[in-house]
């Protein structure tokens, strides 16, 4: 289970860095946060799980989206 989650997170991390669309990257980032919250919950760390879900998936997503909303979504570089 742990390994599966980690593989998924690894894949999402790569996607985050290569995707042309920053919004997709942000969604991937918050998915990674949610997955790691799940992982923490499975690893007997409920406090960290709550924090990661609230802060990583919630606040940081809002902040990221708030920033790119007024700039640009596309990464123009290869």
């Amino acid at each position: 289970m742990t390994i599966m989650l980690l593989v998924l997170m690894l894949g999402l991390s790569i996607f985050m860095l290569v995707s042309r669309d920053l919004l997709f990257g942000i969604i991937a980032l918050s998915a990674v946060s949610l997955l790691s919250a799940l992982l923490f919950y499975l690893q007997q760390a409920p406090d960290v799980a709550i924090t990661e879900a609230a802060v990583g998936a919630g606040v940081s997503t809002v902040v990221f989206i708030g920033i790119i909303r007024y700039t640009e979504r596309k990464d123009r570089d290869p």
Partner: protein
Amino acid sequence: MKQKAINVLTIISLASVTLVLLPLFLENSPWPLSARNYLELHGVGDSGAINLVSAIYLGFRVFDTLGETIVLLTAVSGTIGVLTRAGAVLAEGYDTSGTPALTEQEKKVIMDDHTFTLAGEKRRSHALRTHLLEVVTGVLGPVVLLFGFYLMLYGHLSPGGGFQGGVVTASGIIFLALGNRIGAKNPLIRASVLDRIEAAAFLLLILASLSGILMGRGFFGNPLQDVTAIPAGYIILLNGIIGLKVGAGIGFLCIAMVGREIS
């Protein structure tokens, strides 16, 4: 040519990071148990909190937590300041940096009359926003706020605590803001109110940490030791203060971020 040379350097640097970190990640010795064993035996007795993570977070290592809240406070005020100077995506009334671009009179008007709103005709045409969202978030907001306060105040017993509760409270505040119609004035989503709550909570936090010194129990010593029968009293107090501060701070930050462009 130059591009290639730089790529070689990138590979070298990645390789050296790998070399350095590989032994660290592969370290396989058994996990040291001294701290855990101590906490398992004495943790609850020392701090009064059943949730040992809370006990560490607000008891044994509360000074770290103070540092963390300061990082948050500084980050919020710095982010707002930087954004303001950049020409602002901020919602009106969220310009609180030290160099006011508005006159005091204008500022006062904004602080008093405007609350954050995204409703109706002011939104952009392609904004992903429906009345469903408005209604649901408006109803859900108070419930989330309540859950946040629950997390704050029961942090010493169950998972959660001041910080987590604060973040949940902040999302409750954001829900209230999203569900806000034009004209509705919920004091909790006003910039000045959030700013004041955060400032007052920070002052309270510093005073709480000082109170131990004044009572002769040392820095961050428990001043309530003889006053209250609940052993975790000080932790509950700190949880509440930190929750308020974090909730107000993060709520402020998020609302400022999703606000509309002034330009």
